[in-house]
């Protein structure tokens, strides 16, 4: 075990990098790192500073621009986009960030500007309170632990977990699971084909949640007496946990509709063959 830990730093220790450039508080910054890891954190200096280690002798760290627009990229020896590194990038909090990886894990914390994060198989993690954020992956997982006012999240097979968020949330997967625990939300749109959905985050009094799943199951945790109109329907699945007296037969399938309190918020769930579970209060 000791030998393993002794060897680990060697993977990146041979090629350290430490660069910086002036960055305006509202600069547009683009980052690219194919594999390894990319961590981005806010600080209070008008600088972009990058430190870390390149994976290969031939990899090159390219930092261009300064002030209003900066670009940072890890290149391989042929100038291609397959360079790998473990990097920590510090930026002014208000920058607009566009970051892209292939398999590298991408973590962003503390930024307050607009974020556009993209990966193929790396995991994306977001903390802090960005103004608006768009996160996309193919198989990488997305995890939100921040209070973004507007989130657009999209994966193909990766799971999406929102532990804390505010405002508007739009999340879509094909086979990934959606777990939404943050809130309160003004508007939630969740969509999956075969993934499962768990919604336990509250809505604002006038909030609206629209959830659709084809074969995935949808679970609604108690929303703590939220005055809302609930409209749950499934073509061939079942609605579990709703009193039979609430069931409506106005089309083929199962539909349950009821209103609690003034019903100013709305929760609509629709599945094809997935079940809809209403957990007990």
């Amino acid at each position: 075990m000791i030998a393993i830990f002794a060897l680990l730093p060697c993977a990146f220790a041979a090629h350290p990098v430490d660069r910086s450039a002036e960055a305006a508080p509202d600069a547009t910054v683009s980052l690219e790192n194919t594999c390894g890891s990319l961590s981005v954190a806010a600080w209070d200096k008008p600088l972009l500073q990058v430190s870390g280690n390149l994976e290969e002798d031939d990899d090159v760290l390219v930092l261009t621009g300064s002030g209003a627009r900066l670009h940072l990229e890890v290149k391989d020896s042929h100038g291609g986009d397959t360079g790998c590194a473990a990097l920590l990038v510090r930026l002014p909090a208000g920058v607009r960030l566009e970051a892209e990886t292939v398999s590298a894990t991408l973590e962003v914390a503390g930024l307050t500007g607009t974020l556009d994060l993209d990966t193929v198989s790396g995991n994306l993690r977001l903390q802090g309170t960005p103004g608006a954020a768009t996160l996309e992956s193919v198989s990488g997982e997305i995890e939100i632990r921040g209070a973004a006012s507007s989130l657009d999240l999209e994966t193909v097979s990766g799971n999406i977990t929102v532990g804390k968020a505010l405002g508007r949330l739009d999340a879509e997967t094909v086979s990934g699971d959606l777990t939404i625990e943050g809130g309160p939300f003004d508007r939630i749109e969740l969509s999956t084909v075969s993934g499962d959905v768990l919604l336990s985050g509250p809505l604002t009094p006038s909030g609206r949640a629209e959830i659709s799943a084809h074969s995935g199951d949808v679970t609604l945790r108690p929303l703590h007496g939220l005055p809302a109109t609930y409209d749950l329907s499934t073509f061939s699945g079942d609605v579990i946990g709703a009193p039979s007296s609430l069931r409506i037969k106005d089309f083929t399938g199962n539909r349950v509709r009821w209103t609690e309190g003034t019903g100013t918020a709305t929760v609509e769930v629709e599945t094809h063959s997935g079940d809809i579970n209403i957990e007990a209060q």
Partner: protein
Amino acid sequence: MMPCDTAIALLDDYVDEALTPAERAALQAHLAACPACRAELAALHALLAEAAALPAGIEPPRDLWAGIAAQIQPTAARRPWYARPHVLALAAVLLIGATAAVTHLLEPAPAPRVAEAPVPWEVELEQANAALALALDARRADLDPTTVAILDENLHIIDQAIQDCRIALETDPANPRLEASLRATWEQRIRVLERANRLPSDS
């Protein structure tokens, strides 16, 4: 010698006779020594010949195509011929033409036409999907096999969902939720293909 990526990117301009003399000479030298790129050139010639033989009345849905073309971003300064929007549009036209021809051949002539033709939005979405799938097929070799496998698996999941919706609509054709679900699933398939076509090479 010129690398294959560069050669393929020049093929479209080559058949359009839009290359400079130096580019043309370099490409011809590459083609003389590269069977794979000669095959690409032959495929391009064949595609253009088939397109030229099509009736003039068949056109892809232009509004939809504009959106798709904007989503397929170039991965190099010069896009390869198969990734050029007009080539993809031609491919879509060919697909539509071929589908129409097969449908015509298989349709019993004296039978009255049953009002089961797909609604226009579904035809349009199918065409958009076909064009995007073609674009993805052209770059499968550039993508990581693991990524391709994930994409294929998830496209299969979507296709199964589309099939489920169609079967359900046969039993409950008046159900507006089923039609909305079918449409949403087609649109999600487009988004996945658009995403796949934006992936960088080797990812």
